[in-house]
């Protein structure tokens, strides 16, 4: 068995919106405003092995980005542990913790919004490697040139600003910025969602080429099952902050076990083009503010039984490397 590049154990993140002044006053005179707590990520455990690509799918709002952000060090988890290269992040001293977090980089969804509009590309890519003494300041230009070439950008454009590039080129700048600090893990959060289909294919190819060249590990977050199917070795399915099923990609797409996964795949026309079964997911995604008791999926689940309303199913291994969280599988 290969060693894990990153692993999370029982990781949780809640967002609290506290009451504003008006609501507090209203409460004094009898109104009933409560603090709103969103369990964006709810006791998630997941490991990604070295050089593995794990896809993470699920409807918008299920907590994929929040999980990715915690791995990238942008958000602090409320509970649980993150291990990088086998080391507990919280037990490392400051310097090594920083180095571990630096080795996990993120590629963002919106290529324009994730680039500082007032920074030249050379600085956007070169700032962090200089600050972290990966490259001496006077060698930064050739270093940036090399990375730009690696991601398919013309180094002659190094002094341009983000608005001077096309969408696909901006996506490459975002990738170059992440690569510049020599990461071993890339969290790609809907990294191609904002791009045209043809450009999307080019960027996906780039991801795969980089994986082969640099032995990168990916956590590939997407709501596009087609993209995940193309790239991922293993795929996890999230629903309202929890992972409900995870399995090798081939297996998950061929033989989904969890009712939610099945509904999700049934929604995906190109996969079942011939024998299309219309078991599309009924009902709205429940509010993550007050998720249903028991199995979060039970209000929409066609197979729900009484037990599902009261008891949350644990994620259990049902076959080699294939786990699902459902009382009926």
């Amino acid at each position: 068995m290969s060693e894990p590049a990153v692993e999370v154990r029982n990781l949780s993140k809640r967002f609290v919106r506290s009451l504003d002044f008006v609501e507090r006053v209203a409460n004094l005179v009898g109104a009933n405003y409560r603090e709103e707590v969103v369990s964006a990520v709810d006791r998630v455990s997941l490991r990604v092995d070295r050089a593995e690509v794990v896809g993470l799918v699920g409807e918008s709002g299920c907590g994929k980005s929040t999980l990715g952000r915690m791995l990238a060090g942008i958000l602090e988890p409320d509970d649980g542990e993150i291990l990088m290269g086998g080391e507990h992040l919280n037990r490392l001293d400051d310097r090594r913790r920083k180095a571990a977090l630096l080795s996990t980089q993120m590629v963002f969804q919106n290529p324009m919004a994730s680039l500082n509009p007032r920074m030249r590309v050379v600085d956007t890519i070169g700032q962090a490697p200089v600050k972290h003494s990966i490259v001496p300041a006077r060698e930064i230009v050739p270093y940036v040139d090399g990375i730009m070439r690696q991601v398919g950008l013309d180094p002659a454009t190094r002094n341009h600003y983000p608005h001077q590039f096309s969408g696909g080129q901006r996506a490459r700048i975002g990738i170059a910025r992440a690569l510049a600090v020599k990461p071993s893990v890339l969290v790609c959060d809907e990294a191609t969602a904002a791009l045209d289909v043809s450009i999307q294919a080019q960027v996906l190819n780039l991801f795969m080429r980089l994986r082969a060249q640099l032995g990168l590990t990916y956590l590939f977050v997407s709501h596009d099952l087609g993209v995940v199917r193309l790239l991922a070795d293993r795929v996890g399915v999230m629903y309202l902050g929890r992972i409900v099923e995870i399995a090798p990609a081939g297996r998950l797409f061929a033989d989904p076990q969890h009712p939610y996964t099945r509904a999700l795949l049934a929604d995906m026309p190109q996969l079942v083009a011939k024998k299309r079964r219309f078991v599309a997911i009924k009902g709205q995604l429940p509010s993550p503010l007050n998720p249903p008791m028991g199995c979060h999926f039970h209000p929409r689940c066609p197979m729900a039984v009484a037990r599902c309303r009261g008891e949350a199913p644990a994620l259990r291994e049902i076959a080699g490397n294939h786990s699902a969280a459902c009382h009926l599988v």
Partner: protein
Amino acid sequence: MSTVDQLPTETAGVEEGESMLRRQVREYFRSPLATAATITVATLILMAFFAPLFVPQNPYDLSQLDIMDGLLPPGESTYSGRVLWLGSDEQGRDIYSAILFGLRTSLTVGFLATAIACMLGTIIGVISAYVGGWVDSFVMRVVDLQLSLPSILVALVLLAAFGRGIDKVIAALVIVQWAYYARTVRAAALVERGAEYVEAARCLMLSNTQIVFRHVLPNCMPPIIVVATAQIAHAIALEATLSFLGAGVPVTQPSLGMLIASGYNYLLSGQYWISTYPGVVLVITVGAINLMGDRLRDVLNPRLAN
């Protein structure tokens, strides 16, 4: 996969590394009114700061004044035959020279007060946005309080306590103006803080200092510049009012406001020029700076920019 690396050539038409700044500067000067205002302000600044090069006399060197030249109307010649285009006051002081020296005081006070208030307000605003919690609440309460009081009143009270002096006027102006910057910068910094490129910077483990100085503040500059331009005009007008009321700069370094005040008594007896010409220059200065501010706001407004 070499085809993947074929670059689209759509940047070919764009100038090499043209920054947002350069684009905005070009856009700014597309307005003839703003261009005229900028030239006016630049001229006034140059003439004021190199005033000794442009004037026939030092209006505050008593040895250069001749009482015989007192109260001459515009266009008259002095005893020694020099034409006084803007007339003279009762001590025989050339009004044109007095205006340039006065403008120098007015501009110095306006720019220094604005620069200090801007720096102070920016620091307070960024800290408030970054620290959050009760610090933020406290700072914002003080800002609200400050902005709810009329600045002229606060400045008068402060100067009553401080006494006269250029440094004291500047201090009073800073105290009544820092809150504008704090509020603006805090709002902008809160937006920038949540920007994806700031998240990217955090992910790259850059320090808060690096993030604030390289990512947050540069992107807060447009609103800061707009507020600062308006506040320079405001500071100059406020100082003129204070000096007119006798609470501002000392008599040895009169500003435009004080020149207006000193000629005020002569207005009714027909010697309009002592008060009027400094007043005209004050109006032109404040008006032109405000025009620049309006144009800057249009050019830098992110909602209008693409």
